[in-house]
């Protein structure tokens, strides 16, 4: 495609999306709008992933980390909110950077839901877990994230943030007028689940993180993977 043609193509696509969003907003169809938004928020990561030249090793590494994260979720499925998935995603992001963190997180969400059942929550989980990876990757070179305390605080706060974002998917569409009171009571209702997630993150980070980082760093330095362009 020529440059002009491509600009026209993407311009009209963007315009169509904006018009659609405005129509949905005006008519108060907040639920489809929220799905549109969450899709658009994840789109840049996937466009970049599709277009970058990547070695087969790098793709397979992301797939394997995603599989480990997804598998670790399945046996914990009966316990709501307790899973080492967030921990695995954080560790991958700390070693391999923000982009890998995002991909590992969102792919783990899709794949584990293939076993546990897709639903309207899938895009939200993709987003939340992706963001855990992305933020952990962005902060990985700071002193805060290098200390065990920092990692624990990070995991603890994401335990709550994850639940708070996940609450949105039904709150947005389902209440005729959203007030702070509705939000507050939903968050109070989910408090124990969020706390369980936060505490399980802290548990996994304080016990396993040192050895996980060692294993992942060893693979990274042995094969020299995913380093230069993502630093």
């Amino acid at each position: 495609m020529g440059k002009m043609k491509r600009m026209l193509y993407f311009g009209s696509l963007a315009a169509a999306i904006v018009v659609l969003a405005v129509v949905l907003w005006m008519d108060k169809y907040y639920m489809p709008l929220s799905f549109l938004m969450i899709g658009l928020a994840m789109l840049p990561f996937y466009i970049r992933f599709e277009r970058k030249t990547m070695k087969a090793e790098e793709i397979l590494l992301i797939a394997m980390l995603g599989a480990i994260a997804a598998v670790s979720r399945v046996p914990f499925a009966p316990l709501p909110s307790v899973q080492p998935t967030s921990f695995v995603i954080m560790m991958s992001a700390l070693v391999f950077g923000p982009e890998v963190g995002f991909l590992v997180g969102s792919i783990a969400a899709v794949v584990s839901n293939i076993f546990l059942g897709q639903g309207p929550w899938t895009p939200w989980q993709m987003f939340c877990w992706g963001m855990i990876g992305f933020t952990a990757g962005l902060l990985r070179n700071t002193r805060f994230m290098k200390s065990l305390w920092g990692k624990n605080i990070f995991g603890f706060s994401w335990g709550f943030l994850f639940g708070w974002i996940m609450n949105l998917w039904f709150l947005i569409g389902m209440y005729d007028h959203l007030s702070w009171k509705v939000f507050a009571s939903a968050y109070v209702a989910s408090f124990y689940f969020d706390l369980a997630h936060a505490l399980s993150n802290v548990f996994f980070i304080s016990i396993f993180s040192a050895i996980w980082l060692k294993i992942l760093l060893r693979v990274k330095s042995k094969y020299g993977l995913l380093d230069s362009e993502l630093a």
Partner: protein
Amino acid sequence: MIHGFSTLHPRLCFAYFAVLLLACMMYTHPVYSVLTLIGIVVLNLSLDGGRALKKGIKGYLIIAIIIFVSNPLFSSRGATILGYVFDRPITLESIAYGALFALSLLNILLAFVAYNLVITPEKLLYLLTPIAPRTAFIITVTLRFVPLLTRRLKQIMTVQRVLGYLHPRANKRHLMREGMETLHTLISWSLEEALQTASSMRARGYGIGKRTSSVSYPMDRRDILVFWIMVVTGANIVIGGLFGVNRFQVYPRLQSLEWSPQLWLHLICYLIFVFIPIVMNGKEELLWRTIKSKM
């Protein structure tokens, strides 16, 4: 059972669920919601006899009931006041709104139960490949790793047991330390293996040209017929929806049901659309029961 609707072209199945889910989210007309609920439940029954439905329905009903009960408690919009609870007016409108949205959420959740039965991972990957080939590929590989990892986990645990490390009567702390060891062995092993798989892939020419899909779904005559039915009824659904034919007002005052010819037309189109898979599955079922051998 793989017959009827499940054998339709994946793009058509996906389009069906996309329209159905959007309709669940956007239409608040009570007649539409109730008919959609019936349609989805019958669809689930015709797909697998309601086994998947039975597993999830309890949780979904609880969510719907919570929404239904909590809406009038939080919202006191509406003109018809029925009574007061804790000095807050409870209105007929907010109860109706809660009921309609609980129903709509239930529809969405149950539609996803059917979606999971029809759109298998294989079809999902077929749909994704032309749009995002690398994403589809990475999901395929990740999916393949999941059974591999569980198999390896069993192997490692067998070795540990043979060596006498995983004694069932050992104390908890010891078992946990061994459990950690199992997991770390699994990770180191699998990551190394993944990289070897990658080298092997590269040696066989990964990334040289465009990849092709191993499963192909040609559009046959039945698919094309269903496609046109979906286009005609779907266009009616969308256009009618845009003009607000089936708009139902809850606030400020609950609207009574009004039947206009446009609404009838829209409703009939919607019903035909929703019941496409049920008709297809029903036809197969009838054929199976009534077919006579001509030998």
